Each structure stands twice: as structure tokens, then as C-alpha cells.
């Protein structure tokens, strides 16, 4: 007798859940051992234990909080403003036809310019405060959401729009009942790209000139040749990035309840 397939996959899922932390511990242990055994200079590579210590003191002594708050503020408000603008402009461009089609190639061209390159300019204009960072993050998140909104709304399921035509739906009803939900998946793809870019954008903007933020902390650690502190900030950034991605994904799963979930057993 073979066990049913669902049970096999469930067992495999449990195995994954057990293996993942074990693997992480093994890698960290190996890392620690290698640094000690090979007598690697602490300038080149920090030990995981030193990184953990740096993280601990960073939080306990209160060094991190203001910087963390600054980066999160820039990232979240920039992301919210940028994606809201991207969504609204995307809707406007697709709904008001011809003009949008003229604009689209330019938008794609602008999209391929690295927006982070404007950071020095924006800081020159708006100063070292939060404002300039939020503007850069807004700019960086705007485009992926815009492009995805436009392409999502442009793909029209002919059968569905025919149905709406036969039911004498007006333009607004067709938009709300069919076109927007049809495009939602694509829009969310744009949002998950944007949320990662938001973090990148705020760090790069901080590099270009800031008083507070995790980017500033990274530069300070670099100036002090404190490798462990730099790694500690990278750990923080990884956690923020992961949390933000998961938040967008969670929202998508909630709002787009009808989409089939692929890779149900996927531990991510």
C-alpha cells in the first residue's frame, strides 16, 4: 500500500520545516568555525557571534531605534505614495485611451533609467532630511506599479467584456466588476517589485546624504572599519525586506482570494 499523495507531501513539508533551521544552524556554525580556524582578519569577515553581539548591543543601547525608524518611515511612506500614484496614473492612462498609448513607450524608456542615480540631485534640491528620501522612494516605486497597472488593464479577456456588453453594463461597471479584478494579479506583481525597490531606494538615498537611517549606520560602521556592525545592519535590512515582501503577499492572498495558490507546500 502506498500512502496517499497528500500525506506524502505533508510529510515532506514537515521534513522541510525541520531541515531549514538545522541547515541555517549548520551554515552559521561552519562560518564561525572557518573564521576562527583560518584566522581571518575581523576586518574582512565577522564571526556570526560578533554580528549577533553587535545586533544585541545595537538594540539594547538604543543605537538602532532612530535609524530604523527613519529608514522605515522613508520606505513605507515612499512606497505608499509611489504605488498609489502609480495605480492612479495607470488607471487614468488606460481609461483615457489614445493619450495613454502615446505615452506608454516613453514610460517604459523612463522605467529603464536607474532612478537611484537621481539621488544626489534630489538631495541637492530637498536637503538631508526625510523629505528627499521619501521623494526618491516614491519615484522608484511609482514606475513598476504604473507599468504593471497599465499592462494588467490592457490585457482584456474578450469573453468577459462581451459578457458585460451583452448585460448592458456601463463603462464604470465593466471596469469595477471585470477589468480591475482581472488586472489585480498583475498589479500586485508590480507592488511586490516596488516594495523591494523601496528599501533599496531609501538606503541608497541615505548613502547619498542623510542624518539618520540604516544607510547612515552602514557608512558609520564602514568608517570605523567595524565589519560586524555592517553585517548586523545587513541582517536588519534582510529582515525588513522579507517582512515587507511577506506583507504584500499576505495582502494579495487576502484581497485576491480567488486566485489559485500554486506551490501550496512551498515553505516560503
Amino acid at each position: 500500500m502506498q500512502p496517499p499523495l497528500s500525506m506524502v507531501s505533508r510529510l515532506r513539508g514537515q521534513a522541510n520545516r525541520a531541515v531549514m533551521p538545522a541547515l541555517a544552524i549548520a551554515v552559521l556554525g561552519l562560518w564561525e568555525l572557518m573564521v576562527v580556524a583560518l584566522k581571518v582578519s575581523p576586518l574582512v569577515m565577522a564571526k556570526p557571534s560578533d554580528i549577533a553581539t553587535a545586533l544585541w548591543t545595537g538594540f539594547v543601547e538604543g543605537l538602532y531605534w532612530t535609524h530604523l525608524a527613519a529608514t522605515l518611515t522613508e520606505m513605507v511612506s515612499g512606497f505608499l505614495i509611489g504605488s498609489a500614484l502609480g495605480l492612479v496614473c495607470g488607471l487614468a492612462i488606460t481609461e483615457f485611451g489614445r493619450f495613454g498609448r502615446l505615452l506608454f513607450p516613453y514610460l517604459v524608456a523612463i522605467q529603464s533609467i536607474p532612478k537611484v542615480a537621481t539621488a544626489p540631485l534630489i538631495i541637492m534640491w530637498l536637503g538631508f532630511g526625510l523629505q528627499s528620501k521619501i521623494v526618491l522612494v516614491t519615484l522608484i516605486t511609482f514606475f513598476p506599479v504604473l507599468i504593471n497597472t497599465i499592462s494588467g488593464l490592457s490585457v482584456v479577456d474578450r469573453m468577459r467584456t462581451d459578457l458585460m456588453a451583452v448585460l448592458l453594463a456601463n463603462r464604470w461597471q465593466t471596469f469595477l466588476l471585470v477589468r480591475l479584478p482581472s488586472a489585480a494579479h498583475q498589479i500586485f506583481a508590480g507592488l511586490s517589485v516596488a516594495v523591494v525597490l523601496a528599501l533599496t531606494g531609501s538606503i541608497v538615498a541615505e548613502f547619498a546624504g542623510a542624518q539618520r537611517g540604516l544607510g547612515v549606520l552602514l557608512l558609520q560602521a564602514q568608517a570605523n572599519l567595524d565589519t560586524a556592525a555592517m553585517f548586523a545592519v545587513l541582517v536588519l535590512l534582510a529582515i525588513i525586506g522579507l517582512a515587507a515582501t511577506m506583507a504584500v503577499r499576505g495582502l494579495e492572498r487576502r484581497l485576491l482570494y480567488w486566485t489559485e495558490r500554486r506551490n501550496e507546500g512551498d515553505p516560503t
Partner: protein
Amino acid sequence: MQSPLEPTGLALDPKPPAALVFHDVDHEYYVRRSATVRALAGIELALATGEFVSVVGPSGCGKTTLLRLAVGLLRPSRGTVSIGGEPVRSPRRDVSFIFQDAVMLPWFSVMENVTLPIRIAGGDMAMARLRAGELLDRVGLTGFHNATPMQLSGGMRQRAAIVRALMTRPRILLMDEPFGALDALTREQMNLDLASIAEASGCTVLLITHGISEAVFLANRVVVMTPRPGRIAEMIDIPLPRPRNRRTLAAPEFAALCDRVREHFQHPGSEMASAYE
């Protein structure tokens, strides 16, 4: 004078008023700037009120174009399509359309999908839900009112689509190969159900189909079409008694009528023959 006791749909004299009329209809599609494809040529067809007409023909004979003209999604290149004497310019509330695919919106439940026409028309939703519930039960979807379309089988989705089409109490029901995607067993059951639904609703029905026995089983009249450009090759009256049911399928007259339709598609070597089995 028209007698109220007269059976509907048979060759009648005096005639009841025609519900849907195609008069000398041609349709051409623009392929490129100058090239056109002629899909329909000289279609002359009148459906009496309450009549059930099936259209059979090979792929690409313009059957679907015929329906799209009737529902007002297309305008004829020449001739007129009229309903109750008025030319069709755009979709109307008293005409329902059933697509090849059920076209259920996955973000709505079965109930929400089925009541969509009333929601769009701004009608009484409480009443609509009540009526939808009854109709869903009648087509065997009891217990699936709040399911999502994804949870239904293809046949169940198409039943829901039929309910959606009936919600507005249409005078005319247009169906574009509604069971084309279903397996043979489901299809047979759907035909039995559709026969009783159509008989009960009193709608005028125009059904496009690939299935010869299905066309004969359901209709008062079968229209056979030729390949591109689509012309009417023959109209065959189907004087089988109603209600149609399993016994109809076993009747020798039924087989004879099917054979008569099939003859059109079985000239040796003809392209039309291969499409039908």
C-alpha cells in the same frame, strides 16, 4: 385568426409574429485595410415566438457571427436583423446570450455570478437572489449557491450560465455551442435539461451547435449552413412531439431526421464530412 390552442413552433399558418428576423444578411470582416472575409451571405431566417431553432454547420461557416449579429455585438454589412420588428443596434435586456464557455467571474460566488445581470441593471437584489436560488435548485446546483465557480465542474458552470441567462426573463435566448466543451455524457444530460428548461420558459431560442443529434433533439427547426461564406443550405422541420425526453432519443423518426441532417456533411471527400462524426 390565430388560435391560442395552436401548438407552437410547427409550420404554422396563420403565423404568430416573428420574434427574431434575419433579412438578406451579409457580413464581412475586415482582415486588413482592403481585404475582407465574407462570413455570411444572404441569410434569410425568421424565428417565430417560442420557436427553438438549431443551426448546424462546419467550423468557420459564420454560425457565431450569426449570433453576434442577433445580440447586437456586431452590425450586418448588408441587410437587417430585427427583434419584434425593431432593428438590432446594440444588446437588449430581453435578449440573453450563452457563451461557448460559461464565463463565470472567479471573484464572485455562483450566486453573485448568476445575479450579475440584475445587479448591473440596478434591479431588486433580494428578489433576484430568491429567484436565482430557485433556478439553481432546478438545474441541480442545490448546495452550490455560495461555491466559487472554480469549485464547479464544467457542466455545472454551464448550468449556472444558463441560470444567469434566464434571470432577466428574456424573450430570446441565444446560445453559442454552449455544451461544446463538455464530455458526451454530461452533454446528453444537459440537452435533456435544456429541453425542459426551454419548454418551460417559453423563450424563443437560437442554438448554434456542432452536434447533429443535439440540434435535432432540441429544435423545432434545424438550419444547415454551408462553409464560408455561410449560406443556409436547408431548413429541416423537426415535428417530433414535445415534451422531448429520453424516449424521443429512441424514436425511429429521431434517427431518420438526424440522418437527413447528416447527409449534408457526408459527400465523399468533402471538407464538411470530416468535421462531423
